[in-house]
């Protein structure tokens, strides 16, 4: 299965929901009018493209319509596709690398967004390209989170630095960096505890981990990946914003994009925040990770033959 097929399959649910929703309001031959634009707006919201982004897209369609570029409903889909694909800047979606020594990557996110699984996926991804990886189990809060990461480390055959449950996550991160330096690994992946972006003290803790790690590796973290659950609705934008306030979030990892109807949120996040989406997670095994490619994503999102969906 090619890469394109893979993403398309993962996004089949999304496409079904979003595009068929759009299609329903865009019958062939219908003339564009304000009513249609309103229905279109609702259809976009139903696909989890948030109000702000849907507003903007609606405005652009209206402008194109007023300018005489669009007149009938069936032209809108193609126009939307171009508009959305056009917004993705070719910004750097590569993982950052340290100039010398190990690259430190923080993986952060709210509870249950899929951080630990995403860490395993990243680990697999990095190993596949030949990096040596060390894991730091800094989720010392949730019961058995350390065990979960340990199991992954064993399965993937990488080293892990861990402490007792309940210990200071910053200390674990520090030790992980020390071990990483000593062993000369390429990448240190730090798995942090889930925290709701509204919990100020936990966001401060994140900040502390960063400060402590910098004592060992001054340029760290080279990359802070925020893991977002794709099934989350408009709150995802809030989350990204709050996390970015506490630490320099350098990229997003959109997890659980398979089987959910939520591709729209990716459009929304990309539109409203300057943080690039770097990876998407599309399944449960460590291999189910793909670097985000906007062209492919939009292509898959608006792919027009529904018959091969799901099957």
């Amino acid at each position, binding site marked *: 299965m090619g890469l394109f097929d893979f993403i398309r399959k993962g996004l089949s*649910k999304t496409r079904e*929901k979003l595009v068929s929703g759009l299609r329903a309001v865009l019958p062939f031959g219908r003339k564009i009018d304000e009513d249609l634009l309103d229905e279109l707006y*609702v*259809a976009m*919201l*139903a*696909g*989890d493209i*948030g*109000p*702000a982004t849907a507003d903007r897209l609606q405005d652009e369609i209206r402008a194109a319509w007023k300018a005489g570029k669009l007149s009938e409903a069936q032209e809108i889909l193609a126009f939307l596709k171009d508009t959305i694909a056009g917004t993705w800047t070719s910004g750097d979606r590569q993982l950052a690398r340290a100039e010398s020594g190990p690259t430190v990557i923080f993986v952060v996110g*709210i*509870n*249950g*967004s*899929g951080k630990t699984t995403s860490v395993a996926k990243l680990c697999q991804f990095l190993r596949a390209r030949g990096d040596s990886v060390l894991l730091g189990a800094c989720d010392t*809060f*949730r*019961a*058995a*989170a350390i*065990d*979960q990461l*340990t*199991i*992954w480390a064993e*399965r993937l055959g990488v080293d892990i630095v861990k402490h007792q*449950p309940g210990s200071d996550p910053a200390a674990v991160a520090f030790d992980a960096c020390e071990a990483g330096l000593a062993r000369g690994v390429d990448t240190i992946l730090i798995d942090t505890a889930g925290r*709701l*972006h*509204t*919990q*100020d003290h936990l966001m401060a803790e994140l900040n502390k981990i960063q400060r402590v790690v910098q004592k060992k590796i001054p340029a760290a973290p080279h990359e802070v990946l925020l893991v977002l*659950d794709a*099934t*989350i*609705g*408009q*709150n*995802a*934008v*809030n989350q990204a914003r709050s996390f970015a306030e506490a630490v320099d979030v350098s990229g997003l990892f959109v997890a*659980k994009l*398979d*089987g*959910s*109807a*939520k591709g*729209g*949120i990716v459009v929304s996040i990309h539109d409203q925040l300057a943080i690039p989406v770097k990876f998407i997670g599309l399944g*449960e095994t460590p291999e189910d990770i793909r670097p985000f490619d906007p062209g492919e994503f939009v292509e898959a999102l608006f792919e027009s033959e529904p018959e091969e969906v799901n099957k």
Partner: protein
Amino acid sequence: MFETLSDKLGGIFGGLRGRGKITEANVQEAMRQVRTALLEADVNVEVARDFVKRCQEAALGQEVIKTLKPDQVMIKVVHDQLVELMGPIESRIPFVSQPPTVILMAGLQGSGKTTTCAKLARYCQMRGKKPILVAADLKRPAAIDQLEVLGKQLNVPVHTERDHQNPVKVCRNAVHAARKSDRDVVILDTAGRLAIDDELMSEVSQVANATRPHQIYLVLDAMTGQDAVATAKAFDARLELDGAILTKFDSDTRGGAALSVKAVTGKPIKFIGVGEKLEALEEFHPERVAGRILGMGDVVTLVEKAHETMDAEQAQKAQEKMAKGTLGLDDFLSQLEGFRKMGPMKQVLKMIPGMGDALKNVDLPESELNRFKGIIHSMTPKERANPDRIEASRRRRIAKGCGCEPQEVSALVKQFLNMRPLMKMMAGGGIGDRMAAMQSLGNMGQLQAGQVPKIARGSTKYDPRKADKIRKKRKRSRRRK
């Protein structure tokens, strides 16, 4: 980003206020705003559409036309409709007369099933039950360990079969074992699964067939977007849910998913998870979530929180002093401390009606409070009791003591003296006065020293009689327990 629905409706009808005339077009515009507010709160599109229709009918029946404050009436209509749609609820778990009561928990990955299982076990424990947790999540690494750790924290046994691969067998064995033991509630923690994953969905229905659970709960992340409905429907079709538990409600989500789930499946929300600790499980109250969806406040929770965290005796003393207008800085400090215990400033203030989203971008003086504390600690007890006695020389001394400028000391004192009459009002007046005072207190942080805060009177966003009723009802039900 979010403008509250109340503001928007106020905008639409504001110009008409007093003239008492509303056209059909106005109502329709208002309904569009209602719909947008619902969608912003992640309420399902279909549900929002139906809901708006119902509101429109209800609004016309209410003779909105004649009222003086049409925007407020509209809000009330919408709010009531929301409450009606989400309620009535029965959050108690119906334990069966012949134990054990078997409860099956299902949901998506990362929705919070395992934690919620433990919370539910604690809930049962508090009601004199002897629960047992069953680790039937054999998929996620260390899920069994997680449940065991949580069980240990609660002193609740955990049934595990580590070498089994089949959750159906594990669950069946667990229920059998529970029948023979003294355990009267069995909570099955199943693996997370996507609603579209046929294989796993039939596995969970097999578990249900094998164990015949008395209650089946869907655990759903309160932040779930438009997909909530599809998920709830799919699980309901397979499992015939008895209710849902919404987790992570302590985030800043509007909780529109709650409305969608109830509207589509007809199954009630039983509980909400409001924190990471195991005691953070609350019964679901539709009126609170309604307020949240609309971006209004949540006074009832605020008052309850205050009761929980503030030292009753101290509060009584402070209240007396407040009523007399002799409150000192000492008391003020302990009040502030109590206030802070209720949670982050921003979150607490958000519960005050009308403040909700106005605060979204306001930086609240959390650190300011620390500074206040420093300044007050540098005063002598006498100065604290009578802040009006602080003159230039004392001011300089205090400033030196806490490392700030004398102006800051005088600003604090002035603010405090301005606040005293407000506090008096809060302590003495009716609930309407209190709320008004609270609101202006909330604004305090942004005030310039010496400026007298404005008091917004007669806010009708909040219906004191109704809150009283709710509170009384809850008191009664608590007594019954």
